[in-house]
Structure formats: structure tokens, C-alpha cells
């Protein structure tokens, strides 16, 4: 039987010689390409040294020449050699395939910080953004949104608003006139009149829209801007309702700790009249922000926003409403000024330049 054993040993030695370069495979300097090459060579070696047609499988045929009592031992020898071969190859394969799959993953490693792929999104105009937010608040408070003509007759722009001919507010050089005698509305209060004519009373509306004043454009003035006018007329409406309403929407916009302040003032279309301020949204009324004088409120803690008051009885009479039965409040404020304060804009003209570098800062 020694002859047969020798044959088996020869096969083993031949394998070990060939396999030598795959033993303790050093992949430290390998690349994916070289590993693939080694892997291919190992596969060839595996084909030759394993399976039914391999040399070691061939040695099993020698079992007929072995004495019967030694056949079992010979069989075990062949099987153990075969098992060694397979396990050595598989070990090398495992090592290689781990390396290859690691290398592949590594090769497909991404820079996750590169920007995502999407078309540029545009931006609503700052005025639209603020108008929509305020409209949402008032609609939820039961108000209808109204607008109307931008070029008006003197009747709607002045007379019906208790600004008769000869009134200083009318003669002031604020109003644009067309050559055929119409006025560019100088306040959205005109919509009060139009809306009450249309809807009658009781009424609850806000009227956002463009208004025009003959101001030469500079850092703080523009000849066209946007106003929001509010009007509530019903039985038993008092100034307390005015204060409550203005406070409510400002709190919804700027937070529930916002407080308001009303100061006596004068407007032809309201009596009594008041200007209203609210506690600064930035410093929360303290006047100081991060240890410095707060910018939006100039350190006062208050932001002056608009005018308001109880609708003048002459305005109610102008639309056929009996001021003895109904009363109401109105308020108004400018959106550009509000935006300028909210975003610390130092030049209000930017609003109408349509400079994309400006527009894309807001959404």
C-alpha cells in the first residue's frame, strides 16, 4: 500500500507547491484589479484540484490495489487530503472575496456632502408672504378679504372718508392724480366704503392692496406700497374690540407674549382715533437684544405699526348706515414698513427692484 500512499502524498505535495502563493495571501498592497486577477487564478487552481476530475479524486481509483484490510485507512487518507485542499482553497477564497467586496464598496463610496439634485425653487415676494400670513389669521378670525379699484374717484378716496374739499389731508401734495381727474388711492380705506356699499353691515373685512403717495423714493419712502385695512361694523362694537382684535392678530403673528399699546391720535375717518404699537418681536419689549440696543425698535421696546379708531359717523352715513345703531372700528398699517422692521431692511426701495439676490432671501 505504500506505493499508493506515496501517490497520494505526491498529489498533496503538487497541490501545496501550486497553492503556496495563495497561502497567507498578502493583500496589503493589492488593488481591486490585482485581487480580481488572483481570484481568477485561484478559481483555475480550484478547478484543477477539486471535483471529480481532480488528481486527488483520481487517487481514489487506486483503492482497488490496496489490501482489503487497509482500504478503509487509505480511503480516510484520501478524504482527509481532499478536505485539506478544499478548506485551504476556501480559506483563500473567503479572504479574497472579503477584500474584493470591501474594495468594491470602498470604490463606490460617495461624498454625501455634495448638493442634492433638484431644480432651483423660486420665491414668493416678501409682501406676498406677509400678506398671506396675515390673511390666514384674519380669515380664521371670521374676516372676509376684500379689495377694489386702485384708481379711484375723489368721492371714494376722500369725501366718503370724511375728508371734504378744503381739508388739509386732501390738499396735502400726497395724492397722485391722473390727467382726467382720478386719484390713485392713497389708502386702502377706500375699500371700507366699497365693501360696505356691496355687503352692507354688519361686516368684518380686511383689505390688503396697493396704495400710492407722492413720495420721492429714498431709503424709507416709496411712492407705491401695500396697506392692510381692517374694518368691523356691528351693533355694540367698542374700542375694546379694536384693542382685542389688533392684539389678537399681532399675538398670532409674533407670539402670545406680545402686548399692544394704543395712543390717542387723529385721522379724519375715525373718532376717537388711536395709533397702535406692539412690543418688539425681537427683544420682546426689553429694548436690548444680545446685550445691544435692539435694532427693529431702536431700543424703545415698542414698534409703531399703524393707525386705528372708531369709524367716524360721517363715514357710516356715507354708506347709509345709521351711526346711532351701528358702530365699528377700523385699523390700517403698511406692509413694507412692517417687512422693513421684521427683517431690518435699511433700504425699502429693494422691495420693488426685483433683484433676485434680494428676492431669494425670503420664503
Amino acid at each position, binding site marked *: 500500500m505504500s506505493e499508493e500512499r506515496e501517490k497520494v502524498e505526491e498529489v498533496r505535495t503538487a497541490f501545496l507547491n501550486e497553492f503556496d502563493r495563495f497561502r497567507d495571501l498578502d493583500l496589503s498592497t493589492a488593488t481591486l484589479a490585482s485581487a480580481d486577477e488572483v481570484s481568477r487564478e485561484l478559481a483555475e487552481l480550484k478547478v484543477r484540484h477539486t471535483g471529480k476530475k481532480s488528481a486527488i479524486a483520481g487517487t481514489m481509483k487506486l483503492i482497488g490495489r490496496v489490501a482489503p484490510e487497509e482500504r478503509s485507512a487509505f480511503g480516510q487518507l484520501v478524504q482527509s487530503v481532499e478536505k485539506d485542499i478544499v478548506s485551504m482553497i476556501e480559506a483563500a477564497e473567503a479572504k479574497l472575496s472579503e477584500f474584493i467586496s470591501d474594495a468594491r464598496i470602498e470604490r463606490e463610496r460617495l461624498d454625501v456632502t455634495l*448638493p*442634492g*439634485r433638484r*431644480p*432651483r*425653487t*423660486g420665491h*414668493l*415676494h416678501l409682501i*406676498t408672504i406677509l400678506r398671506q400670513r396675515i*390673511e390666514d389669521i*384674519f*380669515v380664521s*378670525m*371670521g374676516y*372676509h*378679504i376684500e379689495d377694489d379699484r*386702485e*384708481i379711484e374717484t375723489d368721492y371714494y378716496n376722500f369725501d366718503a372718508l370724511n375728508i371734504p374739499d*378744503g381739508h*388739509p389731508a386732501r*390738499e396735502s401734495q400726497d395724492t*397722485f392724480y*391722473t*390727467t382726467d381727474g382720478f386719484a390713485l388711492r392713497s389708502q386702502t380705506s377706500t375699500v371700507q366704503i366699497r365693501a360696505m356699499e356691496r355687503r352692507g353691515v354688519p361686516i*368684518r373685512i380686511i383689505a390688503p392692496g*396697493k396704495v400710492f403717495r*407722492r*413720495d*420721492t*423714493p429714498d431709503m424709507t419712502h416709496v*411712492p407705491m406700497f401695500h396697506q392692510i385695512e381692517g374694518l368691523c361694523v*356691528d351693533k355694540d362694537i*367698542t*374700542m*375694546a*374690540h379694536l*384693542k*382685542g382684535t389688533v392684539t389678537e392678530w399681532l399675538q398670532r403673528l409674533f407670539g402670545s407674549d406680545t402686548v399692544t*399699546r*394704543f*395712543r*390717542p*391720535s*387723529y385721522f379724519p375717518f375715525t*373718532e*376717537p*382715533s*388711536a395709533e397702535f404699537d406692539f412690543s418688539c418681536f425681537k427683544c420682546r419689549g426689553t429694548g436690548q437684544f444680545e446685550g445691544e440696543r435692539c435694532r427693529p425698535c431702536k431700543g424703545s421696546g415698542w414698534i409703531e405699526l399703524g393707525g386705528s379708531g*372708531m369709524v367716524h*359717523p360721517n363715514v357710516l352715513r356715507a354708506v347709509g348706515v345709521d351711526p346711532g345703531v351701528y*358702530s365699528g372700528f377700523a385699523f390700517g398699517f403698511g406692509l413694507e414698513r412692517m417687512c422693513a422692521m421684521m427683517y431690518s431692511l435699511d433700504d425699502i426701495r429693494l*422691495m*420693488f427692484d*426685483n*433683484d*433676485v*439676490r434680494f*428676492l*431669494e432671501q425670503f420664503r
Partner: protein
Amino acid sequence: MNISYNWLKDLIDLKGNAEEVARQLTRVGLAVEGIHPHGDDLVLDIDLTSNRPDCLSHLGIARELSVYTGSPVKVLTEDVPDVPMPAVLAGDIVRIDAPDICHRFTARIVRNVKIGPSPKWLVDRLEAIGERSINNVADITNYVMHELGQPMHSFDLDKLEGGRIVVRRAAAGETITTLDEVERNLDDSMLMICDAVKPAAIGGIMGGLNSSITDDTVNVLLEVAFFKRESIRSTSRKLNLTTEASYRFERGVDIDNLVRASDRAVRLICELAGGVADDLIDVYPSVHRAGRVVSNDISAAVKRLTGLTVSTDECDRILESLGITAETGEEGEKSYLSPTWRHDIAIEEDLVEEVARHTGYENIGVELPPAFGAGEYQHNEPREKRLRQTLVDQGFDEAISYSFIDTRFDGMFDAVPGLLIHGGGDRFVTLNDSVIEGAVRMRHSILPGLLDAVRLNLNFQRRDVRLFELGKAFAAVGDGEPPNEQELFALVVTGGEVHQDRAMTTRELDFYDAKGAVEAAMAAVGVTDLSFRAADVQHLRRGQAASIAVSGEIVGSLGRLSDNIAAGYKFKQPVYIAEINLQMVLGSAAKTPVYRPLPKFPGITRDVSFIAGRDAAYTSMRDAILSQGSDLIKAVDFVDVYEGKGLSEGERSITIRIEYRSDDRTLVDSEIDGLHLQVLSEIERKTRARPRF
């Protein structure tokens, strides 16, 4: 307006320091904007509303404070001598020929005065409130104006011809050289204070140079008068001349305060400049009657309008402190007399405001009105909101441009349909004048604004720009009718396709990007029947212009900006624009989708290519297919267009996909072969395009 704290203390006993006084004033609507030191004095800078000319003096401010302090204003408790010169004698010196605009005129002659510098206390007082000292007599008139609110003027009596005053309107062609050494042309609406011959002062506005006080003046005539507000305002506007005096007269002074003011000034002149005063001349043709405001229950009125609970006694106390006295008529009717210095107390609501502001707005409650019902957006707002959002999602920024534009845009842009309702040419709405050079036209179109914006952005190296705007355009209607206002929607597209946070654009935008945006916008507002047709539009380049129609009605245009206009802007890259009359589009209700059952059987799609000239439109091929009216033709879609190699110049190949499908069975090719051939020959017949195999 500047108010001296020390001066104020001369007039009224104050509670608290200057800060406290400032707080009290601000609280009642006389906003103190700042307190500035001046020597040992403090100066309050007060921002007054236009309805309170009575507060343009220390007296007026003291009166407001007296409601709070409860102490009277001292000068008002002093007696004023009221024994004027008999009218017979006075008439030789002062005559009013225009009593409709000069309601009262007082004069007082002070003889043997010595003009010289003012004493230090007077100079200090004036400087504290920002006034410059001139000489003792001029300073005294200025001082009394700031103290009592009454403007006055001093003449050199010896320079008045005839030594007398005639108050009359200017004669046409008359002129006067005023104190500022400007010669002014007068007209017959202007009130003049004249001597026997010529104008010596523009009444209530400014004195004349020839009759003014100089260092040599010995005899002074002091005028203290009351003029009709409207007259002063009109003359001041016409002459473009505003003075401290005209400012007060045109807002209204106190006709009952004239004698007190005159007396105060004369006493000071005698005291500081020497001299002896003649009797007061007071010409007061028709005596002023105080206004009367009926209010039977002021407490209830206050409650009704402000929610404040203020007793009748307290209301009356506040009003009384302000000089508004209650009176009960014979039949028990209660009314309040409007004081002569208050021109703003005419109705009960005015009284309510007085009570409310002195009770304090901070004491008014804070409550919401009773619930009313659901709120509602403007009818078109939800659709406009979707339109805006859709464009924003497509990369457009929203622009807002001025509604007035330059005349250089006249006739440059075709107006959208529905704007020029009378058709007849350009009916611009034009402003009398503008504050922006040249911008006197109310816009016919939003496009000039958007193109200006494109230029601005290009100048700032932003060459990839997509903007849209919603807003009104205007056209005159004529016949005294207000202008036609239409809500438009416009967009502009230029440069390349930008990706967020990426520096490189992927490709240049073209006509179809602008068109796609229009389609998306119209879909967003619920338009389903949108169509485009080649059109000639003045401001668009020939061959790249389309009309836009909704349900067959033209609503706007789309295309590439004409070379002409582009050259004017120095645009070196193509610019695509569209403008639509949005109001017309939104005039019809949004279409609600109709459900169609999902297909149960597979269909067959066939792509066909046609070679055609540039004049054969894709839509005419599509229409030719659909005109077959076959139930089996379920969809026609555009696949691709090709021009160039293999085709001759002016030709292009259009590929169209047709989907055939039956609702009740699976189609086999042989079933549609015939129909398909029919389709092909129909396209060929109608469009002269030839199939390409």
C-alpha cells in the same frame, strides 16, 4: 414742536418732573418724541397731530396738562382789559374791506419805543425752543406767539402811508417785497394788510420789507388778527410760502385770544423797549359764536364707543378742564360749548375722544368682538395662490414692480385682450406728474417692469432669471368713467436652467420653457382647454410668438422678446416673455375633473414620423388624427421633433405616438391596420406632411 419746561412752569403748577410731564402728554395724544437739555431748562419735542393747532403754544400744552394736575392755567385767570378805543375813532386807523376772510383785526400803537437787543431771559427762552433773537420788539411778538399761540406782526407806523391800515384783497397786478426780500406777485384772492396806498404785509403770512421794524423805528403798530383758515392756506400754497404764522393761521387760532395776546405783547414792549401804548383798536365785524354739541348722556356715549365707564361728573370735569363747558337748555337738553381755540369739536364723538384720551386708552378693555361666522378669502385668491406656488416650484421668483412706467414704453407692447375696451388706439392713464423721472403712465402691461428687472439682474451678473408678477394694468375709458383695471399675469424667462446649489446651468432655456410655465400656471388655476397658435405680436420676435387662448378665447401672448426691444435693453441673450389677462381667465369657473373608468384591456401604440415644412403645426396633425372620430383612438402624444442631417433645409421630422385601444376587448394589430393607414393619409391630406418610414 419745542416746548420749554421752565416756560411751562410759569403757566401752570406742574406735578412731577419733565419725564412725568412728557409721559402725561404722550398718554393724551401729544407725543413727546424726546427731552433735550438747554442750559438749566429742558425742552420737550412734541409731535402734534394736524387737528390740534391749539397746542402749538405753551398755553395749549398747559391747558392739556391742567386736566391731569387739576390746577388752572395762570394766564387764563388774569384779567384782560377790555376797553377798546371807540369804533368811531378806531375806523380812522383800521378798516376791514374783506370781512369774509378777515374776521377780526386788532391794532395797538406804541409810541417812542427804542429798538434794541432783548434781555437775556428773553433770548434764552427763544433759544431754548430753537428761535433766533432779532431785536426786542420782534422777539416779543415771537415770544407771545409761542406762549399764547397767536401770531402777530409789528409795523413801523411811520412807514405806513397815511398812518393807517386797510385790510383788503390785493388788486390784480399788485406786488409786495416780503421780509425775505423776495418780490411776490399777488392776485385778487389774497388778503393784504395795506396802508392807505399799497400792501404792507401778506395777511397772516409775512410782513412787507418796506414797513418793517428797523433799528430806527420809533412808533410801532402791533397787528393781532384772525383770518379765515382756507384763505391763508390757499395764499400760502399759491405763493409757496409757509411761515410759523401761516402754519398756525391755516390750522386755526383762537379768535377770543386776540386781545389777551395783544395786551401781553404791548406790556412787554413797554417794559423792554420803553414807549407808551395807545388804546386798543378792535375791529370785529361779526362776532364769533361758539359751536354747540348736543350730548344728553355723555357717560353713555363714552361707554358705547369705548367701553369705558366714566361718570357724567368725571366726563364734565375733564371737558370743563379743557374749556368745554356744559350747558343745560330750557327743555333739559344738555349740550357742550366748543371753545374758540378748538376747531375740532363738532360732534358727540369728538367729546367722547376727549374723555377717553384723558381717562386713558390704557384703561379701555381688550376683548374680541362676538363671533360672526366663517371668514373667506377673495374669490380668486385660492386659485391665484396655487398659481403663485406653482411658478415658485418651477423656479420663478415673484416680482412686484411700480404701477407707473416711463413714457418711452408708449406703444412698445401690445396690450392684453380685454384691457383696451374701446379699442381706439393707446388709451393711456396718465398722471399729472410723477416722483420718478418720466414715469407718468399707469402701466398697460407688466412686461416693462419685468424687463427692467431682467436688466437690473443682468447688470448684477445674474444671467439666469425667471420672474413672474401678478398685478393690475390700466387703460383709460374716457367719458368721465374711471379707468379700466385688469389683473394681469406675466412672466419672463432668460438664461440657463439652474439647479439648486449648483454653479453650472444645465442648458439654455427656450421658448418651450416659457410655454411650459404658462401651461403649468394655467393648469394651476383650473384651465383645461388651453391652446396656442402662431401669431404676430408687436413686441415678440416673428416666428417665435404665439397667442394664448382659453376655451378658444385669446387671453394673452407668449414668445421671444423682439430683437428691437431686446437691443434697446442691450440684452445679449434671448428673453422669453408671456402676458395673460388673468381676470379673463379667472372669470370662468375652474373645471372640475370628470372620472373616466380605467382601461380594462391593453392597447396598441404606434409611433409615426412625418416630414413637414415649418408651417405644418403639430397641433394640426394631432387634430387631423382626432378628426377621424374613431372610438379606438384613445390618445395622441408628441414624441420628438428632428431637423438637420438627412432632411432638407426648412424641413423637420415630427414623431407622434397614437394609442389605439378598445373598451371591450383586446385589440389585435390586424384590427387597426386599416384605421392607422387612414390616419396617416388624413394627416398627409390635411397638412401636406409626408410619412417617413
